[in-house]
């Protein structure tokens, strides 16, 4: 059943209170009345009303003063002010002070009906808005960040403490570990949560495109710039901007970015007006930015500007105990979206998943489960449904040596640095493996 809308009538004239009381109760509203502003404010301390209908001219505290007090206590309150002495000045004053509407007594019955109908609509919209906001926040918090492992709990603790600050954050972790989800969770738990979360995939854009994307452009700035366009920094005003794959931006863009981060102002491409924007930067990368700084491929000053807070996401192979939870989540997600009955997973299949090293991390696990639901028998996911044998190691290595280093480290980690088992898995002898460990200066993660 729909909630009964409550109305508080505040008027010093008894006949007005009685008339409105009768009118609204006949319409099915819950109605209370007060003969002066003081009594109304006392009532509002212990009870909340959806709509407050108040006379302006009352002995003692007048309606406008009461309106200001109500608005300072409960800014979302819907207050309609009434008066028998209408002047434009008081109407403007009331509306400026946050009144929902202003009416002159006596009203036409139809006007009163419409007035209350509009106010009621506003009440429903406000409530709907609140519900949706809560729903969005709970989606960001609960559904997306799954994990019971110590490693994940630590990440969640960091997210919580980082979220409340305004500092820049770098999220590092292998590809597919959920860096964007962590960025969204930081935003969703921060005071900026009701403002935009703007996502920029730096790696997918060329230098000139990235510049126009980040700073916006003026009409005619370049061929094809037919309109003025806001940049991502401008869009992120009061919110957060997420710069994914920050390590891929060019040296020129690094300089530009540093300047924007320091001044929080920029000029659109082809423009001459400085634009200010209050944004928080969250970056992500799967590269080791510190070693890039040492090699001179990433500016040290930018690194320190961005690296105020750092969250390191563990690869899936370091949080194997989370695999059952993640599997359950992806089964439920894909069965629901494919309109299928929930399937189970055989314990042997789950065990094999926990033995796999998942170079593609959670993204790879998700794809595996989706595929298994599509090709499976619709009842149980078995080992045969999982493409474990075909898994390919993916790294961001750009040279053969680097690839070899990353690959050997992954296999060593998989076998808990058991040299014999790792050597056997790599099909090399133990001496060769020792030599490689020495060559690449490999060390177990601490």
């Amino acid at each position, binding site marked *: 059943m729909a909630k009964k809308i409550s109305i508080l009538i505040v008027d010093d004239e008894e006949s007005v209170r009685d008339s409105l009381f009768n009118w609204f109760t*006949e319409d099915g509203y819950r109605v209370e009345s007060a003969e002066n502003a003081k009594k109304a404010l006392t009532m509002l301390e212990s009870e909340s009303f959806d709509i407050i209908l108040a006379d302006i001219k009352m002995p003692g505290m007048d309606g406008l003063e009461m309106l200001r007090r109500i608005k300072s206590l409960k800014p979302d309150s819907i207050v309609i002010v009434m008066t028998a002495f209408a002047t434009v000045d008081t109407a403007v004053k009331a509306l400026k002070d946050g009144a929902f509407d202003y009416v002159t007594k006596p009203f036409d019955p139809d006007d009163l009906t419409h007035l209350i109908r509009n106010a009621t609509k506003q009440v429903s919209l406000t409530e709907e808005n609140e519900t949706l906001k809560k729903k969005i926040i709970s989606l960001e918090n609960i559904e997306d960040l799954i994990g019971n492992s110590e490693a994940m709990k630590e990440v969640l603790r960091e997210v919580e403490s980082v979220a409340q600050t305004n500092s820049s954050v770098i999220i590092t972790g292998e590809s597919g570990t959920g860096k964007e989800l962590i960025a969204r969770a930081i935003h969703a738990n921060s005071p900026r949560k009701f403002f935009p979360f703007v996502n920029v995939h730096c790696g997918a854009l060329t230098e000139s495109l990235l510049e126009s994307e980040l700073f916006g452009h003026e009409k005619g700035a370049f061929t094809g710039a037919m309109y003025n366009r806001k940049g991502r920094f401008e869009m992120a005003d009061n919110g957060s901007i997420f710069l994914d794959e920050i390590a891929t931006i060019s040296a020129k863009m690094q300089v530009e970015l540093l300047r924007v981060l320091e001044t929080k102002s920029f000029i659109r491409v082809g423009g001459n007006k400085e634009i200010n924007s209050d944004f928080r930067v969250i970056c992500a990368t799967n590269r080791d930015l510190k070693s890039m700084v040492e090699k001179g491929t990433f500016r040290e000053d930018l690194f320190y500007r961005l690296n105020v807070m750092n969250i390191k996401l563990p690869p899936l192979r370091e949080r194997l105990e989370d695999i059952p939870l993640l599997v359950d989540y992806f089964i439920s997600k894909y069965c629901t979206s494919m309109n299928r009955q929930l399937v189970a997973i055989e314990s042997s299949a789950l065990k094999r998943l926990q033995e796999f090293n998942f170079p593609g991390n959670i993204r790879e696990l998700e794809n595996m489960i989706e595929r298994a639901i599509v090709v499976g028998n619709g009842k149980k996911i078995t080992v045969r449904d999982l493409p474990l044998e075909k898994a390919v190691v993916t790294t961001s290595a750009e040279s053969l040596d680097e690839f070899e280093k990353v690959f050997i480290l992954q296999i060593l980690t998989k076998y808990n640095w058991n040299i014999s088992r790792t050597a056997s898995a790599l099909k090399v002898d133990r001496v060769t493996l020792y030599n490689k460990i020495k060559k690449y200066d490999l060390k177990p993660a601490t």
Partner: protein
Amino acid sequence: MSLPDITLISFGYFEKELLEKSAEAVKREYRSLLAIKEGHIDLSDYYDPGRRQYNGNALLKHVDAIPVAENNKTLGLFNVDLFIPILTYIFGQAFLGGRTGIASLYRLNNECYGLKADNKLLLDRFRKEMIHELGHTFGLIHCKVPTCVMRSGTYVEDIDQKDHRLCPACRRELGV
């Protein structure tokens, strides 16, 4: 379940046929015993010269003070332009769940809007208004069903749009 008896008290002149036919519709709708009485009142006491209308709140209180048998519902019938302090006019009003209501013929008449008199339409509007106000005394609030007689009507055209009967939901609510 039988509802309390109803007393209609007419103040001022009403066509006998109009009054009897309207009363018949009320009786049929609520399946109650119904009596028609004549009331006497000096309406000038309730006249507001500033608004050139009659105070509906004061008239409602006056009718409510008239002694009737316990549990009876009373509806005062008038032929003058009614107002309440907050509204420019009313067709009638009642104490929700109380024992008294009032209804006026004045703004139901086509001639009030510069149109040709239509007695059939006037009867239809008057019986709807009477059933509506008595519905409030039985505790019914405004109904959202477009054809229900308990639907709120702020213009006379709204009254013409609805039926003179209670919708099934309102009837269930009353247990009739």
